């Protein structure tokens, strides 16, 4: 009788414990997410495909874009424009930055705008630094404390493995949430 009670007691303790452990187990997205090198503004962050440095960051309610042949345009936003100035250099072979996003403190991510050509689409060449900007359009509430994430480097050749456990860059932008009336960017020359 005592042995049976002990068995039932052990099961009563172990079963919830097993359930808890299984719930704590990270999901596939977390297990295989890119391995990020972190840094801060002005610091060169090194990953195997490229090095990246954030030169500056600004936010504004309107974006003034200097395009090709001196053409300029103004873009309003329902939220806020954040423009990040970057310098990037490929290390071994031609590569583009890939997936460039801003991650808000609540976990939401915002991709770089594709309305203008930013540095994210430029082919970086080994040993030749390229400076440019990337613009993001996001809700005003998501700006404060946003982090720049760069992952999934885009190689020009025919085959590359998926981004699982690949390199990534993570830079805290130290934005305080205030937005200037206008912020400027220059389109990248691809």
């Amino acid at each position, binding site marked *: 009788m005592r042995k049976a009670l002990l068995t039932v007691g052990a099961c009563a303790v172990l079963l919830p414990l097993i359930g808890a452990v299984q719930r704590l187990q990270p999901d596939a997205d977390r297990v295989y997410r890119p391995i990020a090198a972190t840094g801060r503004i002005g610091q060169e962050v090194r990953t195997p495909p490229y090095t990246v440095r954030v030169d500056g960051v600004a936010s504004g309610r309107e974006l003034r874009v200097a395009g090709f042949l001196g053409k300029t345009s103004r873009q309003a936003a329902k939220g806020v424009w954040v423009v990040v100035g970057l310098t990037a250099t490929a*290390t*071994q072979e*031609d590569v583009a930055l890939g997936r460039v996003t801003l991650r808000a403190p609540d976990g939401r991510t915002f991709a770089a705008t594709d309305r203008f050509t930013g540095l994210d689409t430029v082919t970086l060449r*080994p*040993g*030749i*630094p390229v400076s440019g900007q990337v613009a993001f359009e996001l809700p005003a509430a998501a700006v404060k404390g946003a982090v720049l994430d760069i992952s999934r480097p885009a190689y020009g050749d*025919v*085959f590359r493995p998926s981004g699982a456990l690949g390199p990534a860059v993570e830079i805290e932008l130290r934005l305080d949430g205030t937005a200037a009336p206008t912020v400027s960017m220059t389109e990248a020359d691809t």
Partner: protein
Amino acid sequence: MNRRAPRRRLSRQLWYALGLVPAVAALVAVQVVPKLEQYDLVRGGTPIVPQPGAPGTFAGSSWRLAELTWSDAEGLPPGSKAVTAVIGVTPGDEAAGRELIKGCAAAVRDARERLWSAATSVKGRADLPTTCAPFDESTFTAVPAEPGTEVRWQASFVVPADAVSSLRVEVRLAQRRVDHVRLTPSAAPSAGPRPAG
């Protein structure tokens, strides 16, 4: 008898352990062998490397580096040079000539194993095509190169100045992404004319 029993048990366990060695090796092989081709692709493939300055045979054609020159073109990033490679390809037979129609991709690699693909921003020489197959201007299509006849074509690159002296030229064919030919100049690249672009 009592002393022999543990020894026999140890001997049996040893055989089990020895049996595990090929089992583990087979398991590793099953996991690794299918990925070798993928690894080779990511690594950039296995090059055919002829002697510096000598031609090499690849995909049924003979390949040679006719010229490798550098220059300061306008609009280059600071600290970089424009490099133009002139490559000669002679198909050994009709099949090799036909394979060139699909296209060739040239790249340059330096002593630090950095790799640059061709840049469209630098046009190179005005008198040479950038495709490795002859072009029929009446039909605007690439045509097979004649076996035994050399086709000269060019590719231009933008590289840092410190890479110029150790550059080698790699050529890949559109249908053979893994294998390629790596042509080494007999001497360091020389200063050439200002590129057309």
